[in-house]
């Protein structure tokens, strides 16, 4: 039965365990706590963002909600159905969660959509027109009748996205849907996601590690790290929570002792060395010092003085607009671009 809460998740945990053989009779049991008591809900017609670094537990959560995985504990409801009502849940969802994978390479894009339409029990009379309009919507006309093996990564990604729309379900679950898309295509895909929400009142869970995507699309964002939701609110409210403080970005050569001295400087609340991707098209990443402080206007001379007297060479200082990345950094002390180590707890024993 449809409800106004399209997704309800309460105290959801998922532990993966594996055994490592140490000898004939000895083994070590590794327990990975991928999700630790996650609780949230998503209203009908809402775009809910799950923002977190790689390995934070986003995909595990989506896999549970799509019934591909069973949780270790906790409760989840999708469209009012509990996880054991898997047929009803599957009929309520259009999902994209393996990137560009999940297509039959020897079939054309159109044939893939036809087949998945049949798997979702879309009547033949509706299927053909819907596929035609999806192909037009995603500008796939030129490649739709070519076998998928001839597609680029981006084209496959778009076709997988089309696949997630083929059953026109009330809920869309999208896991990093813009991976491998170029800037223009990613923007276009986000526009379509927004249209699916605004024009068709679809409820959308949008997983990403790209803060600007979450800021652009989502009405609420859950920031997930190490399997826990560490912040959950409207993106604006999350940012406003930080805006009483200023964030400075300092580029240059910053020795360890300068950073340590800075932590003792009045007005400085926290410092982190982060890395940013250069915008010159290369894969080069440059470290910078992120400083959260009170009243930067007043404290800036003292900050500069502390840095330079401790051997720092400053190339540039910017006062940053607060972003969701800053919210994440402020809570975790790490960047969203960092990978999260999967193994959270290792329990050893023998059997």
């Amino acid at each position, binding site marked *: 039965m449809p409800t106004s809460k399209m997704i309800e998740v309460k105290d959801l945990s998922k532990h993966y365990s594996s055994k490592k053989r140490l000898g004939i009779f000895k083994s070590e049991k590794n327990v990975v706590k991928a999700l630790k008591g996650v609780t949230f809900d998503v209203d009908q017609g809402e775009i809910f963002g799950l923002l977190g670094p790689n390995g934070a537990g986003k995909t595990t959560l989506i896999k549970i909600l799509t*019934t591909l995985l069973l949780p270790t504990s906790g409760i989840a409801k999708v469209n009012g159905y509990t996880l054991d009502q898997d*047929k009803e849940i599957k009929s309520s969802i259009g999902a994209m969660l393996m990137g560009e994978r999940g297509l039959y390479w020897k079939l054309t894009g159109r044939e893939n959509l036809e087949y*998945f339409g049949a798997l979702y029990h879309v009547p033949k009379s509706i299927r053909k027109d819907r596929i035609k309009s999806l192909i037009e919507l995603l500008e796939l006309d030129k490649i739709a009748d070519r076998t998928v093996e001839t597609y680029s990564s981006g084209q496959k990604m778009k076709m997988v996205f089309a696949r997630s729309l083929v*059953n026109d379900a009330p809920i869309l679950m999208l896991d990093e849907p813009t991976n491998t898309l170029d800037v223009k295509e990613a923007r276009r895909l986000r526009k379509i996601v927004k249209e699916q929400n605004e024009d068709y009142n679809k409820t959308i869970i949008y997983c990403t590690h790209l803060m600007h995507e979450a800021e652009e699309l989502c009405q609420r964002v859950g920031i997930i790290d190490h399997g826990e939701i560490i912040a959950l609110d409207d993106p604006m409210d999350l940012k406003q929570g930080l805006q009483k403080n200023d964030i400075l970005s300092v580029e240059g050569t910053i020795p360890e002792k300068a950073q340590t001295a800075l932590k003792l400087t009045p007005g400085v609340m926290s410092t982190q060395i982060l890395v940013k991707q250069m915008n010159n098209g290369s894969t080069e990443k440059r470290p910078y010092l992120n400083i959260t402080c009170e009243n930067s206007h007043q404290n800036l001379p003292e900050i500069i003085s502390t840095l330079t007297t401790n051997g720092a060479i400053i190339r540039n200082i910017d006062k940053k607009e607060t972003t969701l990345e800053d919210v994440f950094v402020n809570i975790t002390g790490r960047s969203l671009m960092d990978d999260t180590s999967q193994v959270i707890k290792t329990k050893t024993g023998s059997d």
Partner: protein
Amino acid sequence: MYAPIQKMTLKSHWGVVWGTFVVRLKTFSRYKGVLFMDILTPVLLAAMPILLGQALSGSISAASANFEQNTGLTGANYVAFIIIGANVFSTVTTSLWLFGFFIRREQTLGTLEALFMSPAHQISILVGLTLYVQLRSVITFLGGYLFGCLLFSINPFQGQVLLALAILLFGLVPIYGLSFLLGALVLKVKQANSLLNTLQWIVGAFMGVFFPITVLPITFQIVSYLFPGFWLNYNIQAALMGLDWFFVNMYGHLGILFIFAITCPLIGYLIFSRTESRSKRAEGIGQF
């Protein structure tokens, strides 16, 4: 507004069956030369023991006489025996690994999770897959049998060909059931190729592909009787070569296949479902 959730009707289930059948057929047709290789492989498999028999006995007729005398299969042409055996063996192994290879291929392609995310019933997908394999089996069996007979100058129409085909289609059903077990094994251990390769030749030995199982020790013969592949092979050989229906009569033999056709898919599917459930509780079905 989004579309209403589609109701699952008999027609829509048939849509999944037909869709799966067509997808498999299209995929198969886009791998050039596979059908030719399917037909050629059992003939090559049969050629080796046939030529070895000829080399050891001096001629095919002398080898046939020795074969009759040593196996007690009166009137059995050893060339036909081996050609039929190799073709049935090829069909049985394809069907036996069908589901295991299907799981593996879909895992690596990334489509297994996409299939499991859809509301389509697994049985509908499996029926579609099975229909495709049945069609492919009939074509390759007929092709391989006719080509083998032509190559070794045997009259292919000496027995009851239509009965043999009916036995083939019916006798593959329990093999699909066993295929679920191997599917469960692949879901559990992921990389099971070496095990499957070894198992293939054990299956061949117990089916009586190149020799009747009467040459095996009695304990091995009992194992053969418990394997539906043996009954499938023997019944086809009996239909095409006029061998004795040693268990009462033809209906007795078909009755045994019928029991296997009921029990094997049930047991196989039950075990597969349990393994699938365990996988969902563990790391998931798409990991490979």
